[in-house]
């Protein structure tokens, strides 16, 4: 049981508004082992982002059980979710979401401000060097290319040494070369650090470079494909 990083049982998420109810996830069961590199694929509205948000403790499930490295987000208060996010999870977004007033190094340092007593972190400069941006430490987001921006975002996601890295369409704003470079970096982190990585993407070719593809459609798992390397 301890081998699982993420375990979902009948996981359901309903978004309710005044006029309608949208069932984004329909009681899905999924288990992702520690050290797995998994792709979530599916058309828009399939429930990929909802799944990542629940796993990333940004949202709570409507029903079902969810276990993130032994923690249940449904039973955790806001403060506890915040601790899980800072200590166990790294997030990479499609739009990078870097703070424009901070340079690359400061953007990577940002989670450390909020980490308080949590000291298990990597030196931000070392991380930027690792993602190949040691020559861009003092550059601001508007001075970087799309590929570089996403690498800074990855370094920021890794600064607190998370056990799970979640990436929501991380190549959506990148060209083919940079997209491949990013996946190569993910693979490297997965092999060398044993990092569990879950990526939501539309890119089939990149999806096939991971260990497993979970196909989501209309809130359900349509296919769980384990790729033989």
């Amino acid at each position, binding site marked *: 049981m301890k081998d699982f990083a993420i375990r979902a049982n009948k996981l359901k998420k309903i978004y309710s508004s005044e006029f309608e109810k949208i069932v984004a996830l329909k009681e899905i069961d999924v288990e992702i082992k520690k050290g797995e590199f998994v792709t979530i694929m599916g058309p828009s509205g399939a429930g990929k982002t909802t799944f990542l*948000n629940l796993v*990333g403790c*940004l*949202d709570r499930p409507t029903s079902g059980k969810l276990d993130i490295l032994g923690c249940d987000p449904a039973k955790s208060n*806001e*403060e506890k979710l*915040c601790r899980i*996010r*800072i*200590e166990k999870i790294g*997030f990479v*977004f499609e*739009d990078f*979401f870097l*703070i*424009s*007033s*901070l340079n690359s190094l*400061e953007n990577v*340092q*940002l*989670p*450390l*401000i*909020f*980490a308080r007593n949590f000291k298990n972190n990597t030196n931000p400069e070392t991380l930027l060097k690792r993602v190949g941006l040691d020559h861009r430490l003092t550059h601001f987001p508007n001075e970087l290319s799309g590929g570089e921006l996403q690498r800074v975002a990855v370094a*920021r*996601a890794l600064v*607190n040494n998370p056990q799970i890295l979640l990436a929501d369409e991380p190549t959506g704003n990148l060209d083919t070369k940079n997209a491949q470079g990013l996946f190569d970096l993910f693979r490297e982190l997965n092999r060398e650090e044993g990092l569990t990585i879950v990526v939501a993407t539309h890119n089939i070719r990149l999806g096939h470079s991971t260990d497993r593809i979970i196909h989501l459609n209309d809130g359900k798992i349509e296919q769980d494909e384990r790729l033989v390397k």
Partner: protein
Amino acid sequence: MKFFVLAYKNLKRRKSRSFLTIGGVAVAVAVLVCLLGFNAGYQEALTSDVDKMGYQVLVTAKGCPYEAATRVLKGEAGLKFIDEDIYKQIISDPDIDKITPLLVQLVYDPEKSDGKGGFDSYSGIERSYMELKPNVKLKSGEWFSSDDADEVILGYDKAESIQKKLQKTVGDKISIPGEDTNLVIVGIFEKTASLEDGDFFLPLKTAQRIFEIEGKLTSIGIKLKQIDRLQAFEERLYPIASIQVISMSQVKGTILNLVNSAKILIMSVAFIAIFVAIIGVINTILMSVFERTQEIGIMKAIGASKLDIFKLIWIETLIICTLGGIFGSIIAIFGGNFTELLVRKVMPYAPGGRLLLITPELLLFSFFGVIIIGIISGLYPAFRAASMRPIEVIRSGE
């Protein structure tokens, strides 16, 4: 990197907006410091002016006692004249310690104030004047050679301006505008830091002769042996129909009462300025919170707690208010002279000495006051930012 640096960088992002908000706070602080400083300074200057007069009691012609007293404080003539005989009549009163007759006349000098024209005050005095005013001493020269000599002693400031303008000093002759008589400058008084520093002093009889009001006085200054004998003294003077007795402490009290009433108005102005500044601060911070909803969401996604976001926004507010407080204090210190000049022009009676008393205590009070206001005005924007849910704000940008 610390919270402070992050907050500072956020403010730096919108330089002109932050600068204007800091400017608004600075103006409010400067207004507060100047108004409170004026209030304290006026009170002190008035007290010192009244104390320097040396009189406890003033006898003038009947009329509005406060107007008469204010005119004497300003070095102007009384409303009406009293007969010199009254002075001779009361000089032997047993309660009187010291007494001096005064004749104050205003003379229009078209050359005054660089040709703009203005009034000069000429006081006819006797030797007893010096006894009643211990702080009035001769700096140079000597007392008048006789009771009706055509001589003049200059107040300190008047001597300086005459020296500068006419290159005349002790021993030289000056003339009174519109009069034929020339007066020899025989002495200069030491600085008293009161309005008398700008006066001309003549022997009483000379003044009566030149201004053609012989046998008349504008007032009589009196120091009693014991101030608690004032009522008895006043009662003895009741039968003299043409005069009134004014206690200077009463005058001081009345003027201060008037100033205190003005204080309420003054404070209202200060509070309006502060209120406007608070609204400005809240508006600026709130706007920057709304502009950064997605950024705040991301910070939460990467581990920032509610308290972290609250702290961040709060520090931004505090930086604005602290900088506003510092710049406001600097404006108040260096702009105080200008305010004083303005107040002197507007006020019907402004005592000598500094009107604006900006003390370190006042600056500290205003500075910490604005910090507390900053803490309060940062609460709402900080609360709004802290209560944003990460998932919703990240989505809002999609």
